[in-house]
């Protein structure tokens, strides 16, 4: 028994039955002869999705016969030598239907010598997926009116006929009063900063899937014309994060925050992005 490239040629033939792929042999009806110099001769018959292999001295009746030395054959099986190069170098000869010989690659799974098997793939315990879904949200007439206002550089609030509370962005109903809001008031556009969420954490923007650039400032602005907790939620110019102070009402104690004004986008489409951010107005 001799080995080249870690391959014993006998094993290549002995494992043919287990490597046979009926789906790859579909439509193939042929007899292949293998003449391995000083090793032996094999006759492979393929037809009707089946195969038969015989060790023989007689390769007559084969549609194609390959004559090759043991080392070259092992090298081709191992993927170390190129079959076409071997043919050119006259190390291998093919007699008969040359094209038929090329079919054998489909009929068998690749031979892997014992001990050289690739580890079977690990069982899948984690599946990573990125899901993209296009969504469209209806604004409804109330939010639609407000967004339309932004196109005209106007910030609108809706007013509760009961308690007089202003909401911007507007809602159809004043929840505590359980009554329909019924009138519009123009507020701001400038105002006083209340809360600053000075964000260091790079959270994802679910509208784009992109990670937000940090640091950024999400702010509550008490726009002119509003009172108490009627703040407007937007962003601060990220260049001015360290230059602002928060306003606060703590019972009788009142601290006024930095004056801010909106910076409008040139191209306004009726969205939150119509205001780029607020910036210092002092």
């Amino acid at each position, binding site marked *: 028994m001799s080995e080249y490239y870690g391959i014993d040629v006998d094993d290549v033939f002995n494992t043919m039955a287990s490597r046979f792929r009926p789906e790859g042999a579909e439509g193939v009806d042929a007899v292949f002869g293998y003449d391995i110099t000083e090793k032996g001769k094999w006759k492979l018959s393929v037809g009707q999705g089946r195969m038969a292999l015989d060790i023989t001295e007689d390769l007559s009746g084969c549609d194609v016969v390959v004559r090759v030395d043991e080392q070259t054959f092992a090298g081709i099986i191992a993927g170390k030598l190129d079959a076409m190069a071997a043919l050119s170098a006259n190390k291998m000869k093919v007699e008969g239907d040359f094209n038929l010989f090329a079919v054998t690659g489909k009929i068998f799974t690749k031979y892997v010598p014992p001990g050289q098997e690739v580890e079977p793939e690990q069982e899948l*315990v*984690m599946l990573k997926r990125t*899901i993209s879904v296009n*969504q469209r*949200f209806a*604004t409804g007439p109330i*939010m639609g009116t407000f*967004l339309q206002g932004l196109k005209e550089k106007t910030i609108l609030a809706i007013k509760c006929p009961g308690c007089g509370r202003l*909401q911007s*962005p507007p*809602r159809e109903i004043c*929840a505590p009063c359980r009554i329909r809001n019924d009138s519009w008031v123009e507020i701001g556009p400038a105002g006083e900063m*209340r*809360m*600053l*969420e*000075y*964000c*260091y*954490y790079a*959270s*994802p*923007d*679910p*509208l784009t899937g992109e990670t*937000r650039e940090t640091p950024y400032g*999400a*702010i*509550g602005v008490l726009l002119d014309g509003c009172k*108490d*907790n009627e*703040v407007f*939620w*937007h*962003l601060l110019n990220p260049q001015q994060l360290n230059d602002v102070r*928060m*306003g*606060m*009402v*703590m*019972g009788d104690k009142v*601290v006024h*925050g930095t004056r801010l004004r909106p910076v409008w986008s040139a191209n306004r489409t009726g*969205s*939150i*992005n119509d205001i780029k951010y607020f910036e210092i107005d002092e």
Partner: protein
Amino acid sequence: MGYKKRNRHVGIVGIGETKFSSHREDVNQPEMIHEAVRGALDDAGLTMDDIDCVVHGNMELFEMVHQPDMWHTLGTGAYGKSAFRVTTGGTTGGTLVCGADNLVASGMYDVVLAVGFEKLQEGHTTGGITNMADPLWARRLQSGALTAQAAVKLIAEFGEARARRAAMTYRIIMDMHACKNPNAHRAFHLDWDQMEDLMATSPPLIGDLRLIHMCSQSDGACAIIFASEKKAREISGKPVWVRDHITVHREETLNLHNNYYPIETTHSFAAKQLYGRNGIDNPLEYFDVFEMYDPSAWWGVDWLRDFFLLEGDEHIKMVENRDIMIDGKMPINPSGGVIATNPIGATAIIRVAEAAKQIRGDAGDHQIPGNVEHGLASSFGGTMWTVLTMLEKETNW
């Protein structure tokens, strides 16, 4: 608020928790849930044949598996049984308890299994929470559940040094508790000499909210079995009774950006209603344990005031005096709380499970020394919503 007394008493007869951790990659969702369900059944000495109805809950935004109750039938044991699904964000676990309690108290079912779970590792927590916001406005602005609001408020009211120390004291106490709880996810063995260092070096998330202050992202599940009084006394030698629960919602817009105080929070509103209708004048005196849904150390400190209806700096003093420690006057989160362990859909039911274990007296290393008869558990979620649950050792109220 309309309210009717319960139709019949309901007892907790079985409790099951998984080990909580950042990655439960060794099990899939139904397998993980099964661990908690099996634990609760074993604890009660029951089999699935004894369960009439299953209530299942988590927050779908995180794993992006919709109607997970179908997949999880294999883990919950709901096959062939009545089953309900609850998903109310952070309060899910509390609402699970409300739902299961109502199903038994009403007489509809005698034995109900409630199970909450989350595998936050399989999704993106902050992305998921941000997705709950109004898509036309707030989604562009919200950063999950991260906010410095409580820090800004406490610093404005009590000064930077005192507020920061109070938050870090709260944090270290919670970690000390977590170190006693073998199921806790994060237990760092923090100690008092690390106070200054942690305040200065823990990475900031938002303003004064630092990583060390914030709750974890955990995987895990928790199951509780509820039974009618007659059944509960047959099943368990020490059932824990659900006395009352309350749920309070508010508008869908967040009210974190105002710096306008005082405001009535859903926490204080719920607490007033609950104590009022149960004749509890001094909650601090009455309760022996409080398992609070404390998403951060800052909120933990701030919310003590809301839940116990305190005034001035009483809540700060509770922390400074370490009254909230496991052997203190008012033990808060002997389990380590939410900062240690936060599988969101399970988090609030864990609060009830942990308070019930304290009342049973079998919480193990994190058992409060002394008699525990009256327990309170809170849930938090949505746009500042509250669920409160009262538990009792006896039915003599």
